[in-house]
């Protein structure tokens, strides 16, 4: 619907408005100006860079990605050796970043919720401690905390030969945390199958329970039984599959432990530092989210005769989540971005690997660009997912 004034005004009014007095035209001019300035600026930088690169004979382009990397990486989720390409080395870095971020996010949310609820506890000691936790961790730079935790890890944990061995097969030492994994056995795939089956079954159980409640009013303990299923079914499979007990136990051989799996101290320090730091913020978010729900809601639910746990799950949480999710998303992104500080304490995350790559190839522009693109991508995917989730929640609720 874009009707415009078509008629020129009569007599004394000039037909054409000078452009500097017409907001529409001015708008176009401003925008053109802005675009021009930005592209000029871009061009200026581009041409300078071109000239500098040419003058200093620095190679450009991403051709280096196929070259042999020639350095080792201490922790990797996929096969990698010094003979592999830079591309593969960088991929190892990305996976390491994702590993610490994902695990960190899960733990942060769990810890943040606990501390946030503790902050609201009616127990004075508990709420005071939670307050101290939040204040102290929020107000110290995360980098300093990482240094601190790393120092704790390598200074106070024992040498491999004197590992702290709380349970057979489990070792804590300054090389990390070692734990056994079962020796591979034909029953394992079956157990995995049983787990999947348990989950599928649990899903149907939940639907059935809901349907039955709707029909008869009886309440079925869904949470408990699904937990039982998920634990029990694989266990049963294991029992009937010949109860293989052989474990791949970590053992001291040569310099280090062999066998089993382990988390390195760098990883643990990074994870711990990030989780503690971010969880302090999450705790505040959770606290204010819960406090945003008025006391009247609880009272109304109480006077209906609902039990405390049902009040929480049916009335408080669904409302609090709406308040909590947006700031929670940005904390999750912060955690991911802060994981780039790994470079300071020796965990080979993406920035650390990219750094080494920049050093060896001298191609700073490509390296920094890669770093930015990777984080941007992670950020965009995360916020897209959270927005989707948020919308879904909002739709269900509103």
């Amino acid at each position: 619907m874009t009707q415009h004034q078509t008629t020129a005004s009569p007599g004394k009014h000039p037909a054409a408005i000078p452009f500097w007095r017409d907001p529409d035209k001015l708008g176009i001019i401003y925008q053109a100006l802005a675009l021009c300035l930005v592209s000029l600026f871009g061009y200026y930088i581009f041409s300078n860079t071109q000239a500098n690169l040419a003058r200093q004979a620095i190679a450009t382009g991403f051709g280096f990605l196929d070259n042999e990397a020639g350095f080792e990486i201490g922790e990797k989720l996929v096969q990698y050796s010094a003979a592999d390409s830079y591309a593969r080395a960088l991929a190892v870095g990305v996976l390491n970043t994702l590993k610490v971020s994902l695990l960190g996010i899960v733990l942060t949310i769990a810890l943040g919720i606990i501390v946030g609820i503790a902050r609201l506890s009616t127990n004075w000691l508990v709420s005071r401690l939670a307050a101290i936790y939040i204040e102290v961790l929020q107000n110290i730079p995360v980098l300093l905390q990482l240094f601190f935790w790393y120092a704790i890890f390598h200074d106070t944990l024992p040498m491999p030969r004197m590992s702290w061995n709380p349970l057979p097969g489990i070792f804590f030492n300054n090389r990390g945390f070692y734990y056994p994994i079962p020796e591979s056995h034909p029953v394992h795939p079956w157990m995995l199958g049983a787990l999947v089956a348990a989950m599928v079954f649990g899903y149907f159980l939940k639907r059935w329970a809901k349907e039955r409640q709707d029909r008869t009013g009886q309440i079925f303990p869904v949470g408990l039984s699904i937990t039982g299923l998920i634990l029990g079914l694989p266990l049963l499979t294991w029992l009937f599959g010949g109860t293989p007990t052989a474990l791949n136990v970590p053992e001291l051989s040569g310099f280090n432990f062999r066998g089993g799996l382990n988390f390195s101290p760098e990883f643990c320090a990074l994870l711990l530092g990030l989780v503690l730091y971010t969880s302090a913020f999450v705790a505040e978010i959770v606290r204010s989210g819960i406090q945003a729900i008025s006391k009247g809601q609880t009272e109304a639910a109480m006077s209906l005769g609902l039990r405390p746990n049902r009040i929480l799950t049916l009335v408080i949480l669904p409302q609090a989540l709406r308040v909590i999710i947006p700031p929670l998303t940005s904390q999750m992104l912060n955690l991911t971005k802060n994981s780039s500080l790994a470079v300071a304490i020796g965990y080979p995350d993406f920035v650390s690997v990219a750094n080494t790559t920049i050093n060896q190839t001298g191609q700073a522009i490509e390296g920094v660009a890669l770093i930015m693109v990777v984080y941007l991508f992670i950020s965009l995917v995360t916020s897209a997912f959270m927005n989707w989730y948020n919308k879904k929640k909002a739709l269900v609720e509103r």
Partner: protein
Amino acid sequence: MSQQTTQHRKYEARPPIASVGVIGWIRQNLFNSPLNSVLTIIIMAGLVQLLPPVTKWAFIDSVWFTSADVCKDTSGACWSVISQNLRFILFGFYPYDEHWRPITSVLILFGLFWLSYYRQFWSKKLLYGWLVGLVVMGVLMKGGIFGLVPVETTQWSGISLTLLLSLFGLTAAYPLGVMLALGRRSTLPAVKTLCVIYIELIRGVPLISLLFMSSVMFPLFLPEGVTIDKILRAQVAIILFTAAYIAEVVRGGLQAIPKGQYEAAEALGLEYGLKMRLIILPQALKVVIPPTVSILISAFKDTSLVIIIGLFDIMKTTKTTLANPEWMGFSTEAYIFIAILYFLGCFSMSNFSRNLEKTLKT
């Protein structure tokens, strides 16, 4: 009847003993349910386990003003690492005889913060006070006039650098952030898109990638022969970064201003610039003071990352001290010391913003 009431009150006034006084407090706050009682006992036990050894280490067995050799023989904390290197940790390689200048600057800063803490001092004068204060601090640090020995910014290190980066970063980022926020709310699609891209791009990447950019890529962007000081480059990175966050905060403030204010301003015949300057921004910026303080806090904490590109902020001076063979090994003490410094800074600021939020609300 009112007489009767008071009489009645007198002889029935006391609540059951278990619900008031110390006992009442303990019952209500520590043992008000079985779960809470268990938690209380566990925490108490933990504190009893933890506090004595920590106290012993930090205070009883510790040494404070000794040489490094003495430290090696004590079982407690070696605070000497701080006391013996304090001036280097705080001021880095700012000329040794000129340390009074950063000290004075920091005192001016504290004074200004202290004045800003009390709302009754809030006025235009305080704002000018801040501007004058910042200029005075700059002149004092830089020297070159009034017979002060000139000191290159490259020599500003330790706490001066930390404060320079965070304060100047915020001051310079503020106008930029406001412009970005206005741009993002603009009706001109191209301007809006540019601002959105900028803001989201910057917020999507970690600060250290910008710092890397400033240290390894930035020199390539400039024409041959033109160089910009390393600190300035890091400062630019911090400004660009902070501006994106400020823009989002300010946008929130702008959104909180009712549409009627825009319309009333327009109806008076104020054009865009005046409308924003006289009506909208003064209100919006006041609303966002508390979140702005949180950005200042983050900026203050984030300056610690410049260590990664080799600038001598207070973290780096501390670590340099620890790189000295004499003092190697006392990192815990040193880290605790700067942690306390950072904590005091951030905590007082966040307290300030919380107070503010309360007073602004009423």
